[in-house]
């Protein structure tokens, strides 16, 4: 297990390094940074002065090392637009995005697991067909369109839920559904396929031969094995939800990281865009690493070598 974990960790660090280089290049390639920093009204001499002051005349790799050192100390640069530290801006928005991502994941799992289990228990039954329909529809619907439909129905017609803002937990219900719905089909199909495979396995027959009752067979013996790939994918999916929440955050005017990213792109506020790309990518890497470790932990064949 330890060797496995160390190998995965090394791999994650390598990916993180690559991502940081890409993220760094993103800003350098987006135009003349010195010009952007100095502002539109600066003279050529001003721009040169800025270039010297910020070390932009140095070779790229020296600049990268300097940038990386700062990033490691939590300094992600300064916003062109707000002249504020980017790190603080992102930190202020992160809780909203996290809440949205986690509740989207919970919603997706809460719907997908029971449906997937029922579908596996009775293949080709109406539950199975319903599950299949939901998952096909889920993958075909554009998420902004689905979000708008939710808003019209629950926000405007029924007036059950607020259509924007982050005033209370209610504000997160529709965004979480709109975002989570998108990931639900994957979980449902994984659960269904996993349960079908496990239910046909010899050890389930052994469990039945012991006289165990249905709940013990289903939950203890079947689900415990079928859930392993779902857990791993859930961690990765959370990464997608955190990064892919731009559309949903914009539609519901949730002031999260995604929304900030979208605004910053339209304002050409590259340091912010770069930092968001970096932060979300790091989240994704950490969650993927976590998925691998969880997977190993849940499988005694890997855990107890």
């Amino acid at each position, binding site marked *: 297990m330890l060797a496995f974990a160390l190998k995965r960790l090394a791999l994650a660090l390598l990916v993180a390094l690559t991502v940081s280089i890409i993220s760094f290049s993103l800003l350098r390639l987006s135009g003349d940074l010195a010009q952007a920093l100095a502002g539109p009204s600066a003279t050529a001499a001003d721009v040169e002065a800025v270039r010297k002051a910020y070390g932009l005349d140095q070779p790229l790799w020296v600049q990268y090392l300097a940038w990386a050192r700062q990033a490691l100390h939590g300094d992600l640069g300064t916003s062109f637009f707000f002249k504020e530290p980017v790190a603080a801006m992102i930190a202020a928005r992160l809780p909203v995005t996290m809440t949205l991502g986690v509740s989207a994941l919970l919603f997706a799992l809460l719907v997908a697991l029971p449906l997937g289990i029922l579908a596996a228990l009775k293949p080709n039954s109406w539950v199975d067909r319903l599950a299949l329909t939901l998952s096909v529809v889920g993958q075909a619907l554009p998420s902004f369109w689905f979000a708008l439909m939710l808003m019209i129905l629950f926000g405007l017609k029924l007036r059950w839920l607020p259509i924007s803002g982050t005033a209370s937990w209610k504000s997160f219900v529709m965004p979480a559904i709109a975002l989570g719905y998108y990931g639900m089909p994957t979980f449902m199909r994984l659960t269904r396929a996993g349960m079908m495979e496990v239910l046909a396995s010899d050890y389930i*027959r052994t469990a039945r031969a012991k*006289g165990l009752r249905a709940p013990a067979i289903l939950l203890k013996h079947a689900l415990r*094995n079928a859930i392993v790939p779902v857990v791993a994918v859930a961690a990765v999916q959370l990464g997608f939800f955190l990064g892919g929440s731009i559309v949903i955050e914009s539609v519901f005017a949730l002031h999260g990281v995604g929304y900030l990213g979208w605004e910053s792109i339209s304002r050409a506020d590259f340091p912010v865009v770069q930092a968001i790309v970096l932060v979300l990518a790091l989240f994704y890497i950490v969650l993927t690493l976590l998925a691998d470790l969880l997977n190993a932990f849940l499988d005694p064949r890997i855990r107890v070598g």
Partner: protein
Amino acid sequence: MIGEPILEVEGLDVVIPLLAGTLRPVRDLAFAVARGETFCIVGESGCGKSLTALALMNLLPRRARRSARRLRFAGTDLARLDERRMADLRGDRIAMIFQEPMTALNPAYTIGNQLEEAMLRHRRVSRAEARDRAIFLLEKVGITAASSRLRQYPHQLSGGLRQRVMIAMALMCGPELIIADEPTTALDVTIQAQILHLLAALQREFRMAVILITHDLGIVARVADRVAVMYAGQIVETGAVADIFARPMHPYTQGLLRCIPVPGRTRRGAHLGSIPGLVPSLMGELAGCGFRNRCVYASPPCAAGGIGLVPLSPQRAYRCLLPPRECAANAAAAAAP
């Protein structure tokens, strides 16, 4: 059969509806098993042995349907028992051991957990008491350092050890009947012998009835009291094991016996035959004898109608149109060098 029967089976059928038609892998089976005896069901692969075992346990695959005129276990009518009450019997008074020890244990739980669970399901005992029983039985099935084995996972054990664990698991509640479906087929030859020895010893010690399913007549010779020979879903011959080996009546039994080496009679390196030809399809009704296209004694009447079991004594019967004298003569001729 000596003594009171613990299991009585009559007219047991299993059907599996398939797209191409109805598969009938178990046809009108009848046998009885006495308390404490070893009853073997022997036959080639695919003749319906496993489905018979699963039918007795009511563990058939989802599509398969079971019907029986009589299915009594220790006075209880299994045919009428609902799944709840049947589950109460399973693992308690009737236990089963499967062919594949590598996949029959859940990879996610320790040996101890899976052993204890078998007892906790049926007895009002604490986990500690169940653990003591598990340790006792692991030692009984010849596993050393039993208490540390309890903490191991199935993948850490060899096939032979896993099958010992499966046997211990079957014994957790002290069953009256054990159904073992080819328990040694997946194991090395040396391990096979050990496991068979173990089963026989445990059976004597705990006075259990055992239904042992195998395709190996050598195993039958070693452990069985009585035997039923199955072919294409039917019992074609049944009787006490010594009697069957001495006087096989059915041409299929005679063919099977020619395929096993007999100490003292088969020369070292001598060619062991196998029965040429293919098993008939198990779809739909059998017209005539299922063995006739592989049988050297077949004649036109063999193709017509159903062939009934010919009783020779209360214990002995065979399913063939040939009269007993002719069968005996054929057996003698085949045994001559």
